[in-house]
């Protein structure tokens, strides 16, 4: 890999007579293929989105949104206070009671179909903005995040008027009311879609809080919501940091909290919703095992492992971050993996050739560095790609630990960065024991050519999603979510709808609305699901 810009290459070097070494240099000279920024216009300031209007936060408070690839402040964004969250919840409640709840299901569906279409039409704009704002490679935001976001709206649009057929037993499900949704920074638009689409399809209204470092695509989405004639207040967006999230998660006017983020914050929200009585689904952390047997097609498995850990800088809750190699192929596999790791291109997220973009925030970069230092101190061997990193912005090279002790911190804690830890096993039983030796249970991968072994493994891996001979595949029809401390509830498909519906006869309890001291009995909307 070379830093040379095409213009820096001397003409003489391009002459055939310059010899083999020069030809090789020319061949490897890198020509960037940047996506143009001109398709997006980033405003200096962004407000909250409440009741169909952009509005300042209380007292005009703002925070800076920083581009991870440069460290530059690209916009100032309204920092919602508890009072602003109150306003947003009230707007959502009013919209629920006056328009959305009583709108015909097919009309709800049509709004969602239109949103899906409009996202598709502005896909490039969303992709570029996502990569600027969050640091992910344009190839991923263009080919994964944005198309899947549109697909989620399209899939759920069709559910809106078919809910009576979803669960059988003659049970007519009903919406819950106001859904508070708190999403992470790793897939900003996609997570917004995962949350908003099913909530709206089921007849709920929404207050969404994007992550502090990645608010812009959610705010761009408001233009589409307006264009799709979504009634004001059906979706409200409150931007801000942890205080905003806490105000929303603990708000007594919400009927449902859906959170995607760390297990630690998930526990806090569990305790908070115990007090408010809101229903809860949690999609939390992971330390997913990626198991490779000696009969696996090795080159495909290497690509699968690359996709598992180096997709989206490793900022993926279901990243295949613990590689478990059968002992007999470990050496050969690691050699191929190291070579493949060297070829990953780290750099400008807007470059179409970039494989690994910028780490989302300075704070996250510090955490990745800290855990890698811990790994080295614990005695594991660290190999990192020799790629050059850009001299500004937050970047971290793809990294691989070998000789990792199963109880070491890097083998147990979620790093949430492009860092893979590798261990070995001898028998399938040992692979299962090691794979399941974690309090998490989000995802797992297995590579083997033996069909019976795939099914045997798939039945025993304690994980909500098992990718066999593939990894990191997502689809709106496919339920996603964890076991154990990776959270509860599913997103996607028929199973994901349950998070936004209640069944059976309505139970008594105080009407919900503004802040209610004391709150109703947990699960008052529906005895069944305290989750």
């Amino acid at each position, binding site marked *: 890999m070379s830093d040379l810009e095409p213009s820096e290459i001397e003409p003489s070097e391009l002459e055939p007579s310059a010899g083999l070494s020069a030809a090789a240099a020319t061949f490897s000279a890198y020509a960037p293929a940047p996506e143009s920024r001109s398709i997006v216009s980033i405003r200096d300031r962004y407000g909250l989105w409440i009741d169909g209007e952009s509005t300042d936060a209380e007292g005009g408070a703002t925070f800076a949104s920083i581009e991870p690839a440069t460290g530059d402040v690209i916009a100032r964004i309204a920092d919602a206070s508890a009072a602003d969250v109150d306003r947003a919840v009230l707007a959502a409640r009013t919209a629920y009671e006056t328009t959305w709840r009583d709108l015909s299901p097919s009309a709800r569906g049509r709004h969602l179909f239109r949103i899906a279409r409009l996202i598709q039409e502005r896909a490039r704009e969303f992709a570029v903005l996502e990569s600027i704002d969050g640091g992910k490679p344009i190839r991923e935001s263009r080919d994964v995040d944005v198309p899947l976001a549109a*697909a989620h709206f399209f899939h759920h649009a069709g559910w809106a008027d078919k809910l009576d057929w979803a669960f059988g037993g003659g*049970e007519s499900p009903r919406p819950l009311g106001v859904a508070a949704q708190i999403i992470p920074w790793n897939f900003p638009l996609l997570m917004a879609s995962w949350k908003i689409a099913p909530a709206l399809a089921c007849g709920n209204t929404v207050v969404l809080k994007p992550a502090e470092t990645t608010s812009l695509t959610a705010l761009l989405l408001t233009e589409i919501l307006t264009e799709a004639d979504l009634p004001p207040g059906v979706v409200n967006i409150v931007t801000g940091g942890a205080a905003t999230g806490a105000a929303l998660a603990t708000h007594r006017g919400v009927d449902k909290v859906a959170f995607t983020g760390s297990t630690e914050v998930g526990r806090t929200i*569990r305790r908070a919703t115990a007090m408010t009585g809101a229903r809860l689904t949690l999609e939390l952390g992971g330390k997913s095992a990626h198991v490779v047997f000696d009969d696996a097609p090795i080159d495909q498995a290497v690509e699968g492992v690359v996709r598992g850990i180096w997709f989206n800088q490793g900022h993926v809750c279901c990243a295949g971050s613990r590689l478990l190699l059968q002992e007999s192929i470990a050496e050969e596999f690691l050699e191929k993996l190291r070579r493949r790791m060297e070829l990953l291109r780290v750099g400008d997220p807007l470059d179409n050739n970039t494989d690994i973009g910028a780490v989302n925030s300075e704070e996250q970069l510090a955490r990745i560095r800290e855990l890698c230092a811990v790994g080295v101190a614990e005695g594991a061997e660290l190999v990192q790609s020799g790629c050059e990193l850009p001299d500004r912005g937050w970047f971290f090279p793809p990294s691989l630990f070998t000789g990792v002790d199963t109880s070491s911190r890097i083998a147990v804690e979620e790093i949430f960065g492009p860092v893979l830890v590798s261990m070995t096993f001898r028998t399938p039983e040992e692979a299962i024991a090691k794979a399941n030796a974690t309090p998490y249970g989000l995802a797992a991968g297995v590579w083997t050519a033996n069909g019976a072994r*795939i099914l045997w493994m798939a039945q025993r891996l304690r994980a909500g999603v098992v990718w066999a*001979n593939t990894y990191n595949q997502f689809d709106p*029809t496919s339920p996603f979510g964890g*076991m154990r401390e990776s959270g509860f509830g599913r997103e996607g*498909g028929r199973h994901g709808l349950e998070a936004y519906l209640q069944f059976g006869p309505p139970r008594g309890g105080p009407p919900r609305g503004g802040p209610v001291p004391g709150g109703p009995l947990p699960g008052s909307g529906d*005895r069944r699901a305290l989750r």
Partner: protein
Amino acid sequence: MSGLGAPKTYKLYVGGAFIRSESGRVAPVAGPDGTVAARVCEASRKDLRDAVTAARTAQPGWAAATPYLRGQILYRVAEMLDGRQEQFIDELEAGGMQTDDAAAEVEAAVDAWIWWAGWTDKLAQVLGAVNPVAGPFLNVSTPEPTGVVGVVAPADRPLAGLAELLAPVLCGGNTAVVLASELSPFAPLTFGEVLATSDLPAGAANLLVGSTKDLAPWLADHHDVDALEISGVTDEASARDLLVRSAHNLKRVARTDGARTPRTAGEFLEIKTVWHPARL
């Protein structure tokens, strides 16, 4: 009281054995006339921990049993219960129920075990799915048991209430630690004898009686309990406290009231989705 002419000391049912409390505590329990109806071993925190260990040990085997076998065993529970109706009616009366109510309670319990016996081999079809993803993959979602479930049974429906909460938990392949009615403990503890003679593996269901107010929080605190069924908790403050305590290991907490829908069993099932390429 005629059925209790030779009052026995009621023992806890843990790991397939009838045990006295490790604490040695035995409490006299009064019948409706105010006199001591019988003595009951009172479960301690250590008994609860032992019961969780027994449930954890039994769980993989019970989950691995075929749904057909699990269904036959749950039906066997109904048969054994039905065959001892008179004793259970007497014991429910000793616990304070009127005769008619006690007969209805036993009948309802038998009915619940039969209803859930028929669900074991249908849950995966009704709750699972083949998902039509947009790509060359086979994508299948299936329910799997959550693991060890703590059940707080209702105090006022000692036998049917227990059946309606325990049967759906066992149905899906979970094992359970049940806090049975402390107001009417005789019938639920004798019910252990039904479980013990129904081919249910030892430890799959464990029955404790003691101070539910003390035991339930310990169950919520226990790190090796995966889920709680708290339909038997009647006061708001206790329910909240259990939810808060459940946060440390993110227990699933449900309050199904034993509703007759497969989603009741689904509260104690985890959906696992498996992807595999389908292409050359």
